[in-house]
């Protein structure tokens, strides 16, 4: 038991999530190793975000077990207090619009820790610079930020408490290829420096190829294939084949062969 909880950051067993009679996640099992970047792919509306939101306790589940960093996750208050162990980057950033960038990053610090204001400012600036922004950007409001900057600030906020795991919901969606590439590189760098486990929901084939250590494919409410990118490209599952061997994925082929 000690070994497995040391080895895995997230363990999901037999998970069932349904909305009324519509079963979205059907007896799903998934292990995320510590210190890896796992990419989750799946059809639009196929339950990727549902899976992520269930793991972090936002959506109640019908059955199964979830363990994050060795602690069971339930849809209750105890889980909410454990929120310091993970950071979440929502698709649209979900920055608090009435607070400045700096206040947004300080929000989790202020709520969870007892720190002097000066140190809090220094930490916020440090986080800003770690995600590649300038100290001056700290005084801006979320409405003044570009899409790429919003994602960076949201990442800085997700990392405010130095969590062991970060969940990223489509981190590169809505970014141009250059900004998306930069963001991928940033995730990789931060993952190395901070020793993060990253759980990333994405459709971006390029980031799957460059950043992810392993890729999990979600189809029909189950994980149908999991492994490094080249293993997934060999997969025989029809949906996985369609996903990775479709027209838009042709650019991946030369690397795979």
């Amino acid at each position, binding site marked *: 038991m000690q070994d497995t909880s040391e080895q895995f950051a997230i363990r999901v067993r037999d998970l069932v999530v349904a909305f009324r009679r519509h079963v979205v996640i059907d007896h799903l099992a998934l292990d995320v190793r510590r210190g890896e970047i796992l990419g989750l792919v799946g059809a639009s509306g196929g339950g990727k975000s549902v899976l992520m939101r269930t793991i972090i306790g936002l959506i109640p589940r019908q059955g199964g077990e979830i363990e994050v960093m060795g602690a069971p996750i339930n849809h209750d208050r105890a889980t909410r207090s454990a929120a310091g162990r993970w950071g979440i980057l929502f698709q649209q950033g979900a920055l608090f619009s009435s607070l400045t960038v700096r206040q947004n990053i300080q929000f989790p610090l202020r709520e969870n820790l007892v*720190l002097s204001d000066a140190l809090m400012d*220094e*930490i916020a600036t440090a986080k800003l610079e770690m995600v590649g922004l300038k*100290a001056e950007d700290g005084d801006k409001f979320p409405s003044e930020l570009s899409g790429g900057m919003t994602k960076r600030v949201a990442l800085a906020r997700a990392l405010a408490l*130095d969590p062991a795991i970060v969940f990223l919901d489509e981190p590169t969606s809505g970014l141009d290829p250059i900004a998306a590439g930069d963001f991928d590189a940033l995730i990789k760098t931060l993952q190395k420096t901070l020793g993060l486990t990253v759980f990333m929901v994405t459709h971006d084939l390029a980031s799957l190829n460059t950043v992810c250590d392993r890729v999990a494919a979600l189809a029909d409410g189950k994980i149908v294939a999991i492994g490094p990118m080249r293993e997934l490209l060999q997969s025989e599952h029809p949906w996985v084949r369609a996903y990775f061997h479709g027209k838009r994925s042709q650019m991946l082929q030369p690397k795979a062969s």
Partner: protein
Amino acid sequence: MATAPLLTATPSGDTLELRPGGSWTAANAATLERLSGDIAPQLDSAGIVKVDMAGVRELDTLGAWLLEKMSRRATSAGHRADIVGIADNYSGLIDEIRQVNRRTPAPVPVRNPIVTKLGEIGRGTIGASEDITAFLQMLGSLCIAILGVLRRPRSLRLTSLTYQLYRVGWQAIPIIVLITFLIGAIIAQQGIFHFRKFGADSYVVDMVGILVLRELGVLIVAIMVAGRSGSAYTAELGSMKMREEIDALSTMGLDPIEVLMLPRILALICALPILSFIGSMAALYGGGLVAWFYGGMGPAIFIARLHEAVSVTHFEVGIIKAPFMALVIGIVACSEGLRVKGSAESLGKQTTTSVVKSIFLVIVLDGQFAVFFASIGM
């Protein structure tokens, strides 16, 4: 795994050796800040500062930054600072933290408070004149749209007009009736209570009749409609603007004023006089009931007195104002809706502005009508 953080400082000759230990993580933030604060004065005096990291069990950004801050303080005092014994898995983090907070951002220039205040007043004035321009612009484009409809009557969107009329007229009746009924009852009760001292209870009927028909009926209804339908218009048009629906309409060669605003404003202009009439009747009814049960004045006497006290002129004065108030509410609501920017906050802000502005303008308009009617002797 988590252990309490430690920081021991052993001065040996010129060298100050710091031995941090335990968990230097955010969980122990308060302790860490105290520890590093306590040690700080010693850093200025020591010649060489040596930080031995071997004892650190856990390290995160916060801990790394505090250690970095200590070494920076020593360096800035002109001494040497060495960090040794860094575990491999933390070397990346330490290197990263060395890069941050190096550059102090340019200080924000302090502005003269008087100049700032004057600037605000100036901006407010310009904003107010812009408001007037926007109002006149909307009025103008509305007139053009009406002319267009008069030339081609088929271009009037009857379905939309009917639907809006149903929403702002028919659906508003229950709440309007309830509110005006209560207002009429309250006025009658207050009147009877105070007039009784002079033995003038029967004049309550005059007061209720004239007040309700001339002023209160239409004013209360206009304020209710501004809050209920004006805000709905702003929110609807604003969210359409946010989702680029209005841009889509204009690219299809349609005039948003004609398609969206004209039916809405026409519906308001039709609905408000009807609602004012219904509201006035409800207020008189409420006043009559109170006069009967509270003042002991039977319905027959009440109606007879009312007949003497009010004339059709009073009713006309009230009802003539209604369409103009509707026009003001509609124009303000629509032009505020079109001023919504991309964000949800601006939608909320503009909706609030729309309601506040239209209620203000309705009351100003009412005042001007009072002056006008007084001068023509109505």
